[in-house]
């Protein structure tokens, strides 16, 4: 900024610098005043309604039960425990949702660009329908219109593999580990590390000599074969506790509650519609010359897609993909409408109702979602930097 020429000296009000200071001072005083007014109003209102302020309710006995808890939780547990149960449930559904939505979204996004007319049109209809309906309606549809009319436990649908499905949830066999089962786990870990090592070695070999090794088949074989070998060697220490009818309800097995299934289905299908569009845009952003170059090298369609197009498309795809992951996590708070015990339902719903501590609870909940959002975007920014085009 150059100093104004002396001849143009007018009223200081027309100096942009001074104006800037005035505006900012005004803004600060307004914010401070509003903040002060809010605090004093809150303290007056709370005093009148005789609501104390603070998080001393954290260790108080909650007195309500939660059906799905990842760690032992009973009605005697504290509100703090309820908070952790809710948070873990939110993270659980978000993690599964992100995985499934990514897979489904990529499939549908690629299908929309398929040369097969009917597949492309079907993918288009899916995307248009899913994206133009409110998520809340879709959740209610899955929960009330699909899962609720399932048969009663007595007439459970048997799914091949020993699982049972009825209107109280999905019951899957629970593995029971006997002596020596640790060896199977060790074999699995060995297979994982072995596959990673093989992957790195094979990639180096390919870069050096151009030879392509069957990475997929080798790691697939190792991941299945090694644990299977360990299973046979140790004499089969793993058995399954199959769900079976007992009295009026199903006994045994692991229960996946219908609320969880509905929320997962809803979040997955909804977000997949958005991810599909992101993927499609990313693939279309790869220039045609890349396709033609791959064609002229004689690469088949799948290899062109996986080795040439998608790696380049990922650069375009990752930033909007991140915001879709964040949206999925935030949308998981819609669990409230179908009663899945996530953070919003347990903490913002039940705990707020019971304690009446509006400010503390809404504040904590917002802080948690904000932290998740900031952490996810920080991680994805780091990943994005690694994937970005490296130029000389």
């Amino acid at each position, binding site marked *: 900024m150059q100093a104004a020429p002396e001849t143009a000296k007018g009223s200081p009000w027309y100096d942009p610098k001074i104006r800037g200071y005035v505006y900012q001072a005004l803004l600060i005083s307004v914010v401070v005043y509003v903040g002060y007014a809010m605090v004093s109003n809150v303290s007056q209102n709370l005093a009148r309604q005789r609501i104390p302020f603070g998080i001393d309710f954290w260790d108080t006995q909650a007195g309500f039960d939660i059906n799905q808890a990842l760690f032992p939780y009973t009605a005697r547990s504290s509100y703090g425990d309820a908070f952790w149960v809710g948070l873990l449930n939110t993270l659980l559904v978000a993690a599964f949702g992100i995985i499934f939505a990514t897979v489904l979204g990529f499939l549908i996004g690629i299908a929309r660009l398929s040369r*097969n007319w009917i597949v492309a049109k079907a993918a288009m209809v899916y995307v248009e*329908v899913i994206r133009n309906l409110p998520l809340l309606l879709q959740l209610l549809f899955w929960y*009330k219109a699909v899962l609720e009319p399932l048969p009663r436990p007595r007439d459970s649908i048997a799914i091949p593999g020993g699982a049972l499905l009825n209107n109280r949830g999905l019951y899957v066999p629970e593995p029971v580990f006997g002596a020596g089962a640790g060896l199977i786990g060790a074999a699995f870990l060995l297979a994982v590390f072995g596959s990673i090592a093989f992957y790195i070695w094979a990639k180096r070999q390919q870069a050096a000599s151009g030879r392509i090794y069957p990475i997929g088949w080798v790691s697939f074989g190792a991941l299945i074969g090694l644990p299977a070998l360990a299973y046979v060697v140790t004499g089969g220490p793993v058995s399954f506790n199959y769900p079976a009818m007992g009295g009026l309800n199903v006994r045994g097995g692991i229960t996946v509650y219908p609320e969880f299934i509905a929320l997962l289905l809803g979040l997955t299908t909804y977000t997949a519609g958005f991810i599909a569009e992101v993927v499609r845009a990313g693939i279309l952003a790869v220039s045609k010359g890349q396709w033609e170059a791959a064609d002229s090298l004689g690469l088949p369609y799948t290899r062109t897609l996986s080795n040439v197009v998608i790696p380049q498309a990922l650069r375009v795809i990752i930033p909007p993909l991140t915001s879709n992951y964040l949206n999925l996590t935030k949308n998981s708070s819609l669990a409230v409408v179908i009663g899945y015990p996530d953070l919003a339902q347990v903490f913002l719903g039940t705990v707020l109702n019971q304690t009446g501590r509006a400010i503390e609870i809404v504040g904590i909940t917002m802080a948690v979602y*904000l932290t998740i959002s900031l952490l996810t975007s920080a991680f994805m920014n780091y990943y994005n930097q690694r994937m970005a085009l490296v130029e000389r």
Partner: protein
Amino acid sequence: MNVSANASAYVQAQSLPELPAPSSTKGPIHWMRANLFATPANTLMTLVAIYLIATTVPALFKFYVFDAVWSGTGRDACLRDKVGREVGACWAFVGDRLQYFIYGSYTQAERWRVNLVFLGFGISIVWLLWDKVPFKSVGFLFFFGILPISAWMLLYGGARAEFWFLIAGFALLAWTIWGDLSAGRKGEPDVFTRPESLIRYGVLAAMVLFGLYVQIGPGELPVVETGLWGGILVTLLIASAGIVFSLPFGIALALGRRSKLPIIKLFSVIFIEFVRGVPLITVLFMANVMLPLFVPQEWSPDRLLRPLIGVALFASAYMAEVVRGGLQAIPRGQYEGAMSLGLGYGKMMRLIVLPQALRIVIPGIVNTFIGLFKDTTLVTIIGIFDFMKTIEASFADPLWATPTTRATGYAFAAIFYFICCWGMSRYSISVEEKLAAGQKR
């Protein structure tokens, strides 16, 4: 030809027999071969897709169209045992409860007021979105100024409503005349007779006359408490409050975020990132349970006003990011050109930058609005009777308790939301194409 005897033996002496023509290079058969059965994998996918379509689509049609019950006065019309045939969707239920889905529990005799608001809303939407309708500036004044105030007064009613209506009409009229007067002083003599001004005067005069008519004529409008409002009325109200508030506020936030003044920038960034980092539900809960604590007891906002505030704040942050994208797309030369003409910050933004920036981001704004429209369903959670909630609530009505009521209600809601959102997205695509046409010389 005798030369051919000496010529190389590999030259054909007579023409080969004609090859059969390729089976087809156009027509449906070829098309199917190229697009449906190109490779074995392709064929398999086609067959799977056809199987899926063949199992779902006819079943849906059978349920929602052929087996559906279209008229009736109670659940008996939709019960299989009473009708004696397979019963699909119970559209009679939707027909019977349609009034409730549109107006909620709004007083029967006063529903003309809602219709009037719907009419005003429809006119202003067409006015703003259809580019062949002239006088956009009057349309903006109507949609962002007159309509929100007058709609609220009309819907709520009460003794003082027409009074305020009258005042608002007079104030706007005075403001317009003053604006025209000052324009006249600048040497635009025909400003009063311009059709644009005439329309504006017409609208404002109609407002004043209506206020006077209600004041002098049939007496005051009875109050309809907001607790009775519901259905599409509330859905539209929340969505339009969101857009009316979020557009100006979002523009202000976007400008703040791009400002060189550090404190203004800091506050804008904090607000935008905070709101975008939390789910709408937490914002709605905040508006519902915390807002009454933040203000003095006697100011405690109306139960319907709280989610309106929450949705408006939420939408502003998203709108701000959309507008920021547009601002960033304007080349520096435009700013510099404006500055070299001696325009100050306000004039530069209002006359040069924002008109271009907002034009580019119309598709983005419409997309934000689609998201906002879908998100209005979340007010269900804090007990507001929007369209979704009225449908959900009527499932509890024993008069229409049938096995297919729920499926019918959800289908009706889906059709409503789909038509609204899909229509908006088509509009945004058409604008996008129109904007791209200007670039494609």
